[in-house]
């Protein structure tokens, strides 16, 4: 186990370097440069001014020099300064937005798991009944409906027509003077629609997955045995089948880790939530290399850690892997 762990950890370094190298190259391959995105088609900007700005950002140096100096800074955890005109440290920009995205996605993730797992179990134990089919239609509707469309409809209904919920943003104007409870309630109201829509959209994947692993498990011999022993259906499903059926779900949980800070551009744009998705999108559109690299590095790191955690917890949950057969 320890050997396996050390091996996995050591493997992460070259992998990580490879990821940064590829992303750095790809973002620089994209046409357009930050300076150009800021000043293109403006009669007031001369070629000299453009050159001056390129020098300011270090874009006049060869690509490998830029990469190495970026890597050198990263080794002391310095993500550099943004190429946007505000020139702020990238880490400030990211840390301002991570809490928002993280808390939103964790809430959505918890609700998603809490709903999808029971739905999946229910669908599996009632396979091919009308209820199973109804659930299938429901979750796939959530999967298929474009989020922005549903979001706009609900916003119009609850925000404009009924005026029950706020439309966008995180806080009402003047929320600074609210008491703690009212402030929290205000934020909750703002988050309600985004979380409902996010959850609705992601139910399908997990619940279908749960349903199929559950179906696979309840066809196993040991379930038949359990039933033959005369155990109640309830205990067969929840004590014997569920445990095994949940194993692959652990892997899914591990994979969702990087997604937690990724956020969603469409979503955040529509609800005017200042999250990571928007930050990343803006960074890419303006070719803000340090910002894009900073977010990607954190994302890559979380992906690696997520995979590692999934593997480790899998090993703990499954004795076959733990004892070195896997």
């Amino acid at each position, binding site marked *: 186990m320890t050997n396996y762990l050390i091996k996995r950890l050591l493997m992460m370094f070259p992998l990580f370097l490879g990821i940064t190298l590829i992303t750095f190259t790809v973002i620089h391959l994209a046409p357009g440069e930050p300076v150009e*995105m800021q000043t293109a088609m403006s009669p007031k*900007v001369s*070629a000299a*001014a453009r050159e*001056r700005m390129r020098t300011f950002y270090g874009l006049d140096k060869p690509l490998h020099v830029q990469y190495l100096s970026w890597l050198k800074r990263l080794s002391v955890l310095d993500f550099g300064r943004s190429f946007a005109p505000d020139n702020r440290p990238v880490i400030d920009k990211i840390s301002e937005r991570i809490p928002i995205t993280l808390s939103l996605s964790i809430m959505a993730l918890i609700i998603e798991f809490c709903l999808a797992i029971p739905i999946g179990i229910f669908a599996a134990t009632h396979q091919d009944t009308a209820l199973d089919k109804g659930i299938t239609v429901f979750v796939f509707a959530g999967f298929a409906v474009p989020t922005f469309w549903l979001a706009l409809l609900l916003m119009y209904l609850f925000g404009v027509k009924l005026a029950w919920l706020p439309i966008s943003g995180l806080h009402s104007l003047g929320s600074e003077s609210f008491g703690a409870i009212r402030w929290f309630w205000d934020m909750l109201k703002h988050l309600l629609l985004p979380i409902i829509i996010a959850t609705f959209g992601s139910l399908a994947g997990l619940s279908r997955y749960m349903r199929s692993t559950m179906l696979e498990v309840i066809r196993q011999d040991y379930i038949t045995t359990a039933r033959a022993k005369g155990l109640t259906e309830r205990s067969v499903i929840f004590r014997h089948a569920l445990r095994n059926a949940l194993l692959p779900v652990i892997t899914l949980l591990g994979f969702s880790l990087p997604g937690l800070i990724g956020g969603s551009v469409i979503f955040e744009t529509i609800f*005017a939530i*200042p999250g990571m998705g928007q930050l990343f999108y803006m960074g890419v559109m303006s070719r803000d290399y340090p910002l894009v690299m900073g977010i990607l590095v954190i994302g890559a790191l979380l992906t690696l850690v997520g995979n590692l955690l999934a593997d480790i917890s899998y090993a703990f949950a499954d004795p076959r892997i733990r004892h070195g057969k896997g």
Partner: protein
Amino acid sequence: MRERWLSGLILLLFVALASCNKSERSGPLPPKTGKPAYGDTMVTGSIGEPSTLIPTLASDSASHEVAGLIYNGLVRYDRNLQLEGDLARSWDISADGLVMTFHLRRGVKWHDGRDFTSRDVLYSYRVTIDPKTPTAYAESFKQVIKAEAPDPYTFRVTYARPYAPALESWGMSILPAHLLEGNDITRSPLSRHPVGTGPYRFREWVPGQKLTLEFNPDYYEGRPYINRYVYRIIPDSSTMFMELKAGGVDMMGLSPVQYQRETGSTRFREGFGKYRYPASAYTYLGYNLKNPLFSDRRVRQAITSAINKDEIIHGVLLGMGQIAHGPYKPGTLAFNPGIKDFDYNPERAKRLLAEAGWKEKNGAGILVKDGKPFQFVIITNQGNAERAKTLQIIQQRLKDVGIEVKPRIIEWAAFLSQYIDKRNFDAVIMGWTIGQDPDLYDVWHSSKTGPKELNFIGYSNPEVDRLLEEGRSTFDWRKRRRSYFRIQEIFAEDQPYTFLYVPDALPVVNSRFQGIEPAPAGIRYNFIRWYAPKEAQIY
């Protein structure tokens, strides 16, 4: 692209909800008139977040919009788009046009209480031309050969040759020297916490969410009526429109579809003032003049004759715009009302094409000369639905006269670097904003055809060159007008672009705000005189 499907879906959404359309939220309607009163908050929405509130460093419109309320320049444009004194009480220009002397206003204070003096102006100028400052605005100040501040309330600049757009350039925001001098401007905390001389003081910036400004009680023109100005960041314009309807936003610019189709309810008409005036921008079809296809003027004239500009305005802008005949905004000083360019006349188009040698047609109905069919590619940038639709309409009209157009829509960065900068295009649909000063040197002078320069169509006309040079080297408006009037005549005949349309700006403002007086400059110019009557105030 995104805008297009969004606006399409918004339409769908309104169809879907049309059944319950009668139950628009009701509430007390604000009174139509009332006495000016202090107080209330103006909430506006912006698609983008400002990048920095030091305007010298900013190149995005959101930054400049907010900074416009915080800072002042030496001069500014008044309601009729004439330059008037701002921080400068008055100015003199020497007879030879080389020396400009600004007499500064006394008693103006920075938001931190310090006096505004010529030292601030000198600093703002110096930091702008400093090679270490990453600014986009150094160019017009590079023409200055000497800048001096003989006393705290006089500022004098000397130019190597008379340069008319120079006066306008002194509308740049004046920065506080006492807070910036000796510091690195790019690392200054002022970019997130500005100190200016303007009608509003900075109060708070919640990143990604909103920016709040508060009235400046010591503003030199008197304190503004509206106490607070909140700038909410709402990246999606459909969301912003819903916020507007729900009362979360007080002012926004609408798209033609929103303006024409979604503001008809009684509730909306009573709740909002709708305004409409020509925007300072035009859209054009530009030809790569290095391409032999377009080097013949008759071909360009024929294409203009084949295009129905009215149809484009109705189809694309739902009528919210007007035909452009040249590079100026109708109704402004430099605009020549007498020019005639080629109106829609397919017969004339065919005749002109025949004169240029395009007589025969092939089996597909496309004109052929020397065995080659008349076909070319029109490119435009992705993300602008209006340009894409214009392109489709033009494609159809040109097909009618036997020209085959292939449309191509390209992502902005690639569009610039792979096509425009490399002159690798046949024709292009783009737009320019129309500056307040009529100088067109950068876009039309034959010396501006170099890489990344703006005369990318390669237009070269010695007479236009001469007129451009004359126009920018005198402060005499009569002479300037003569130059620019003549240029418009030449363009109308030459058709280096087919000028398509000037869209309308379509702002709406919550009707509790009074004192809005639409003028050639739009509505924003007298913002500090807007007010909400006491009984209508909600914040």
